[in-house]
């Protein structure tokens, strides 16, 4: 072997696919729009001048409500896409279920706390997704489900009251506002710290992570990659067979979910109009 063949470029590792990054960008935009149009609605009773100005800037309260609903629709579509993409990964490509919470995550979390308090010798050595990332991912998914459910009740109160006691609607208002505040604060504290303040993690924009970053944040995954265990060879025949089943089923599920969203957003408009008809 000559020197030339052993020369190595600083290696980078794939972390997020283009699809992941686009999903993230769509979610960021819809989350921001939902925040900007949601908070002034939540705090309208405060008579705050700046919130009132914001409402006027966005086209008045009816405009704010309409924009909020558009952004919510985008988020619901992104959620459907995400679920189907995740199903494809798990069912067709059979990737390891690295985002599922495990007992090890609890151990890692406790070790991280103990390390920060000086009670443990080192930080937990984390795998592809750290316990912190899992907290964030599952909070987001759970929060989205709560927001979609309560959002439905607020958007379609007449349909809701047909099946549930009327009290669900003011309760939905409380939960929708509470969950929103929880999500916004969690993003500000948890997400901003772990990927922006601690060190700026560009993986969600570039899709890549450097070896140095991998060593610090995902040492176990790095070790597995280096040992050649990270990527399993996929049998192309089996893959094609699974894909042949997955695509039509996913198509039907997608059609049903999209029909559900269409029903959701077109069912009632009386909760939004402020002008007499």
């Amino acid at each position, binding site marked *: 072997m000559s020197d030339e063949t052993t020369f190595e470029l600083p290696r980078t590792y794939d972390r997020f696919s283009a699809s992941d990054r686009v999903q993230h960008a769509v979610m960021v935009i819809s989350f921001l729009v939902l925040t900007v149009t949601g908070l002034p*609605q939540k705090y*309208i*009773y405060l*008579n705050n001048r700046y919130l*009132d100005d914001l*409402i*006027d800037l966005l086209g*008045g*309260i009816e405009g704010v409500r309409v924009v909020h609903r558009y952004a919510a629709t985008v988020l619901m579509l992104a959620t459907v896409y995400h679920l189907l993409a995740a199903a494809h990964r798990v069912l067709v490509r059979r990737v390891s279920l690295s985002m599922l919470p495990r007992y090890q995550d609890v151990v890692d979390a406790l070790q*991280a*706390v103990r*390390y*920060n*308090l*000086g009670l443990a010798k080192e930080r937990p050595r984390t795998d592809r997704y750290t316990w912190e990332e899992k907290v964030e991912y599952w909070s987001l998914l759970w929060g989205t489900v709560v927001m979609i459910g309560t959002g439905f009740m607020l958007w379609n*109160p*007449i349909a809701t*009251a*047909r099946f*549930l*006691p*009327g*009290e*669900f*609607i*003011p*309760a939905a*208002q*409380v*939960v929708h*506002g*509470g*969950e929103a*505040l*929880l999500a916004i*604060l*969690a993003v500000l*504290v*948890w997400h901003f*710290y*772990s990927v922006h*303040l*601690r060190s700026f993690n560009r993986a969600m924009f570039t899709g890549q992570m450097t070896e140095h970053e991998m060593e610090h944040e995902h040492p176990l995954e790095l070790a597995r990659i280096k040992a050649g265990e990270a990527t399993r060879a996929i049998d192309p025949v089996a893959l094609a067979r699974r894909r042949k089943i997955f695509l039509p089923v996913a198509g039907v599920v997608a059609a049903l979910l999209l029909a559900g969203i269409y029903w959701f957003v077109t069912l*009632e408009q*009386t*909760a939004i*109009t*402020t*002008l*007499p*008809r």
Partner: protein
Amino acid sequence: MKRLRLGSGFLLGSALVLLAAPTRAQECLDCHGQPGSTVSFKDGSSKDITIDAEAWAASVHGSMGATCTDCHTEHKEYPHPELKAGSAREYTLSHYTSCEPCHDEQFKKQLDGVHIKAIAGSHKNAAVCSDCHNPHAQKKITGEDGKLLPEGRVGIPQTCARCHREIQVKYRESVHGQALVDGNPDVPTCIDCHGVHDIPDPRTTAFRLASPRMCADCHTDAKKMAKYKLSTQVLRTYVADFHGSTVTLFQRRHPDQVTNKPVCYDCHGIHDIASKSDPKKSLQVKANLLQTCQKCHPDATANFSDAWLSHYIPTRERTPLVYWSRLAYQILIPGVVGGMALFVASDFLRRRLDRRRHLERRHRGETA
């Protein structure tokens, strides 16, 4: 002849209660004190020009020493100059400005009122000063502090009823009107909602949007409400709900913005406001509330109206779902975010410490 009548008039006047009154009024009363005097106008209308001397003497003007010609300036001479007005109403309208010199404040206010605008249009019968306050008999209705006396308040609906009869009939049967009839001056009369002198047009959007504040003036006053065991949370709960938040937003930002959102009177009635325990009209009757909802939410069914918590603050007993949801997030938000913040703070400090130790180690390694 004239002198003689004047003299006898003076004696007659003194025999009544007018010792302190100036002679000028007596001069006029010589003729105008005679019952049944009328004056006719070109269009055939006529005006009673008899002045009840007793009422005049007891009136605020008479007792304070005002004289007839203070207002009727063109009638200083006798025989009087011929009247310019073509009708009785025209005469009234041409004379209402005589109030201005003394009652400048009220006069200016009424120039912004709905009545004067109606007169400027084609409704010549809309009220001017003297239609509500008969200047020849008006008693003092304000106290030393300038506020209306209780006896003044009680009489207000009758004054308005001279023109707005149907509304007064409705009002009289309302929870407020019944109390007023019983002599209770606590309740609102016409002017508490509609104002006085600068009465705004109640058909405007601005009036509609401002109306919750009118009701709230009394209904958030703990002292007033305690007396009747009424809740002071009615505005707060209304504003916290979808409808109230929109209405109050419009009111403070765009008072001319038309809205379909209900205000207090859409559910409680306008002049026929009933007590919440009134069996006939009570809002507690679900069907009543549902009907109100259906005006804007036509497909609403029985459960729908329960979405409105009827001004009640959510409690464990009455609305457990709302109560527990609220409590859950009151615990969840500080719990979760606080936990996150604690970890973030510990992580941040620990990393800073690690970095400092690392640098120290390197520094020692270099200098060693």
